[in-house]
C-alpha cells in the first residue's frame, strides 16, 4: 500500500499532535467543473479530515450534490462533464489517468438520495461488493454480511429474512441495507448524498444515529438540505452557494458564529 506509507511516517513524527492535526482524506485544490457550458463548481478548495463527519449544505442547485459525486467520479456518468483542478484522495489525484475509478470506488462507498438496493435478496445485496472483488468463500461471505448488517444497525431486523427481496422491506430499512452494502467492501470513506431526504422522521433519526456510530471507523461526507441535520451530526460544515464554497469551518462555528453574511442568511432561513 504505497499511498499510505508517507502518512504513517508523518504519524510517527508527530504522535502528540495527532489529535489536533488529523490527516486529510480528501484535499480538493482549485476544482472547477462544467456541465457543457454551465459552470457548476468554481475554484473549490476543501480539506476534508478523516474520522469526521463533514456536512455539505446549501440551497438546491448550489453544486453540493455535484461535488460529492465528483469525489468518487460518479459525476462523469453525465457525458458532457469537464473538470479541472485536483482532488487528492489520500494524497493521490483521483483524476490521474492511471487511477482506475473502480479502484477508487472500492475505497469510497456511496449512499444515494433514494434507497437503491439491487432487485436481489438482502443477502445478495450485501454480498455483492465482496463477490465482485473476488471473495467466493461462503463462510467468509456470511461473516461479512453479518458484520456489515450489524454495522448498519439492521441485523436484528433482517437476520431471519436474509433471502427475501430487498424491496420487501421499508424504505428506511432499504437505506440501511444500502449502507450495509457500502460497508461490506470495508471502505475508507462513505459519501452520503441526502440519504434521508426520502425517509420518514423515525428512519431519519436511525440513520443519523448510525452516522455517529460509523464515524469511529470511517470518514463520512454527507450532503444534506436539512440544516438541523447538519448541525446535529457533523463536525465540519461546508456551505455551498452557486458552485462556490462560501464558508467551511467547524459546525459549531458555522451555526453559531458564521463569518460570511450569506452563510448567516442561509442558516437563519432567509433564503434557500
Amino acid at each position, binding site marked *: 500500500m504505497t499511498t499510505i506509507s508517507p502518512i504513517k511516517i508523518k504519524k510517527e513524527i508527530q504522535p502528540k499532535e495527532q489529535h489536533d492535526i488529523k490527516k486529510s482524506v480528501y484535499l480538493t485544490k482549485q476544482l472547477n467543473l462544467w456541465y457543457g457550458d454551465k459552470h457548476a463548481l468554481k475554484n473549490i478548495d476543501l480539506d476534508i479530515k478523516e474520522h469526521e463527519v463533514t456536512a455539505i449544505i446549501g440551497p438546491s442547485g448550489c453544486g453540493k450534490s455535484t461535488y460529492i459525486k465528483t469525489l468518487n467520479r460518479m459525476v462523469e456518468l453525465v457525458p458532457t462533464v469537464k473538470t479541472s483542478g485536483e482532488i487528492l484522495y489520500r494524497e493521490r489525484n483521483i483524476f490521474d489517468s492511471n487511477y482506475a475509478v*473502480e*479502484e477508487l470506488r*472500492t*475505497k469510497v462507498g456511496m449512499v444515494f438520495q433514494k434507497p437503491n438496493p439491487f432487485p436481489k435478496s438482502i443477502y445478495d445485496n450485501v454480498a455483492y461488493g*465482496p463477490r465482485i*472483488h473476488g*471473495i467466493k468463500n461462503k463462510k467468509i461471505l456470511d461473516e*461479512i454480511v453479518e458484520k456489515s448488517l450489524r454495522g448498519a444497525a439492521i441485523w436484528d431486523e433482517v437476520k431471519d429474512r436474509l433471502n427475501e427481496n430487498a424491496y420487501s422491506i421499508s424504505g428506511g430499512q432499504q437505506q440501511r441495507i444500502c449502507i450495509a452494502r457500502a460497508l461490506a467492501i*470495508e471502505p475508507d470513506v462513505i459519501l452520503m448524498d441526502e440519504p434521508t431526504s426520502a425517509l420518514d422522521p423515525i428512519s431519519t433519526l436511525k440513520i443519523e444515529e448510525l452516522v455517529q456510530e460509523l464515524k469511529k471507523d470511517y470518514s463520512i461526507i454527507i450532503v444534506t438540505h436539512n440544516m438541523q441535520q447538519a448541525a446535529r451530526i457533523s463536525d465540519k460544515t461546508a456551505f455551498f452557494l452557486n458552485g462556490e464554497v462560501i464558508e467551511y469551518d467547524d459546525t459549531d462555528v458555522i451555526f453559531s458564529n458564521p463569518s460570511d453574511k450569506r452563510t448567516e442568511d442561509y442558516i437563519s432561513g432567509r433564503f434557500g
Partner: protein
Amino acid sequence: MRYVDHDLVVKRMGSRKIVNFLFKGLFMLATTIALLALAILLYRIITQGAEISRGNF
C-alpha cells in the same frame, strides 16, 4: 478484523478491466453484425431491384 484485502482488489483490477473491455468488444460486434446483415440485405434489394427494372424497361 478486515476481510477485504485492498491490495488484492487492486491486483484483480487489471483482469477485471480486460474482461470488461473484451465483452464490450463482443457486444459491439453483435450490434455490428446485426447492422451489417441489414446493410447487406438492403444492398441486395436495391441492386437486384435496379437490375430487374433495367431488364424490363
